[in-house]
Structures are given as structure tokens and as C-alpha cells.
């Protein structure tokens, strides 16, 4: 079993390989790390479901260089991100921002979960509350008591 996991892990490593080439990297490891952080949130506009760090597309490379340029120029991570967002729109962000256009996207899943839980809970509660049909009503209890009393009275005679 362990061997299988090791194999799977080894197979996953090349997948995570980055497309960042040595000539793009910044000499300062702190700035480079920040550039990686920013790149992770940026979608490659050609291949769509990859971040720009793992894409070999020309535009992705240009965006990586641009991110580094902005960071070297003194931008914060958010400013560098905003710079690219101004040109490519929200679409370039892998994590969609929370705004009026994305309320449905963000709130529909929790809302559906709450609704499903509500329906489930209501069903369970209703099932529990339902009176036990085997129990006797007061009138029946009374009738049986009467009957037993009558029987006992009869035996005593």
C-alpha cells in the first residue's frame, strides 16, 4: 500500500513542474517568492485552467515577466495583481472576487446546503413527532378499563 502511494506521489511530481524559466527568475529570492505567490492566482488566458506559472504559453510568460517587473518597481502583491486585472478583467483571476456579479457563484452552494439540511431536518422532525399509531386513545383506554372493571366485578359475584 505504501509503495503504491510512493508511486502515485512520484507520478504527481512532474505534473507540478513549473514553466518558469531560469532567465525569468528574479535574483532576490524574497521578490521571486512574492512573484510566485501572485502568479499562482493568475489564469493563463490561452489555456484557461492553468495558472501562469505552469503554462508554457507566450502570453503566460509575458504576464510572469510583467508581474516581476511590477514587483521590482515596488508594487505590493495586490497592486501587481490589480495591474493585470485592469487589463484582463476578473477573468484572469483563478479565484473569483466577491462582487455583485459573483454573489450567485459564492452564495448558491452554501444556500443550497442550508436548504438541503433544512428539508432533511424538517423530514426527520416530522417523522419523530408523528403519534405512535399502536398507542390507544384516551377513550379506548377508558373503555378497556371499564371492560376490565366489569370483568373483575363479574368474577367477584
Amino acid at each position, binding site marked *: 500500500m505504501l509503495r503504491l502511494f510512493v508511486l502515485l506521489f512520484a507520478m504527481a511530481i512532474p505534473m507540478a513542474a513549473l514553466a518558469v524559466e531560469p532567465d525569468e527568475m528574479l535574483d532576490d529570492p524574497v521578490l521571486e517568492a512574492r512573484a510566485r505567490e501572485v502568479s499562482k492566482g493568475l489564469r493563463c*488566458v*490561452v489555456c*484557461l485552467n492553468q495558472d501562469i506559472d505552469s503554462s508554457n504559453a*507566450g*502570453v503566460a510568460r*509575458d*504576464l510572469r515577466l*510583467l508581474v516581476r517587473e511590477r514587483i521590482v518597481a515596488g508594487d505590493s502583491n495586490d497592486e501587481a495583481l490589480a495591474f493585470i486585472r*485592469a*487589463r*484582463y*478583467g476578473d*477573468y484572469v483571476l483563478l479565484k473569483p472576487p466577491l462582487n455583485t456579479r459573483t454573489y450567485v457563484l459564492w452564495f448558491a452552494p452554501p444556500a443550497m446546503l442550508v436548504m438541503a439540511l433544512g428539508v432533511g431536518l424538517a423530514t426527520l422532525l416530522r417523522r419523530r413527532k408523528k403519534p405512535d399509531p399502536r398507542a390507544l386513545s384516551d377513550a379506548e383506554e377508558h373503555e378497556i378499563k371499564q371492560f376490565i372493571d366489569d370483568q373483575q366485578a363479574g368474577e367477584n359475584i
Partner: protein
Amino acid sequence: MKRILAFLPLLVAVVFGGFFLWGLNPDRDPNEVPSVLIAQPAPDFDLEPVVGVETPGLSRSNLVGTETAVILNVFASWCVPCRAEHAVLTSLAERDGIRLFGINYKDEPEDAARWLTELGNPYARIGSDISGRAGIEWGISGVPETFIVSSDGTVLYRHVGPVVGEVAVGKFREALVQAGALLREDL
């Protein structure tokens, strides 16, 4: 209340069904990257002419204060679809008299010059974007891309990919009519 609840599954089915219908619509292209530029002023850029080509360079100021809406085409000699749409753009520029500007994206000047000599040069201005930085300012994802820019420098329309084929050309000409660059009779 019970009766309303009975319709709930139907409602859910309709909502989901509608969503699937929308998602399965063959005309919808999920790969389409929406442009933030539409109805926005054209981005700032300033490009030198292509070395070895007579056509002057292109900057944002050339897009502001034009007589009518203009076409801005991003092309490259290494881009095969650009070759396909070249005839369409040439016809728009020469037959319909629309001003056509070009951004030569990430191209070697010699290759671009040879390409323009071979196919003809319908461009009134061409900016050489060797670094691809102007391309990023325009938010392009590849070449070719073609924009329609109004006389005051507002981006009106964006077409991703070559303007070829009846549907794409029809839509593009319709957009030109709406931009006032083409008369409806000529459609």
C-alpha cells in the same frame, strides 16, 4: 402551503434544465475570454513603425479624433490564421474605405516586411510590438485579434481569432455598421 411545496421539484427541475440548456448551447463558447475593454477608452500604448516598412507607427493618439470608427488588427507573420483573414481586412480597407491600423505582435521586422510585401499592405499605420507589451495593454490572448475603435478612441468591439467565414465576417460588418464606419446598404 402543501400545494406550493408540491411544485417545488418542478421548479428545481426547470431551473436546472434551463441552466443545462444554456450550458449545452452550441453557440456558446466557454473558452471565450470576456474583454474588459469594451466601452472603455483605448489603452495607452506607443509603438514604433516596423523597421523596413514605410507605414508609420501607431500610438493611442492615432486612435483619438479619427473621422469615423477604425479597425485595429493585431497580427503577426508567424500566425497562420492572420494569413487567412488578410484578404477580408484588405477588402474592408480598400473596398469599403475603412481605416485599418495594425499591431505587429512579437514579430521579426524582416519577417513582417516580407509578409506585407507578399500579401499586400492594407494598413494605414502599423506599430511594431516586439515585446508584446502593447498586446497585454489590449488584453489579447493570442493573435489574430481585431478591435473596432470609435472616433473618440473608445473600444466598441473585439473579435478573437481570424475574421473569416460568413458568420464572423457578418458579425464584424454588423458591428462596423453600428459603429458608423459602414453604411447599412453596404452590409
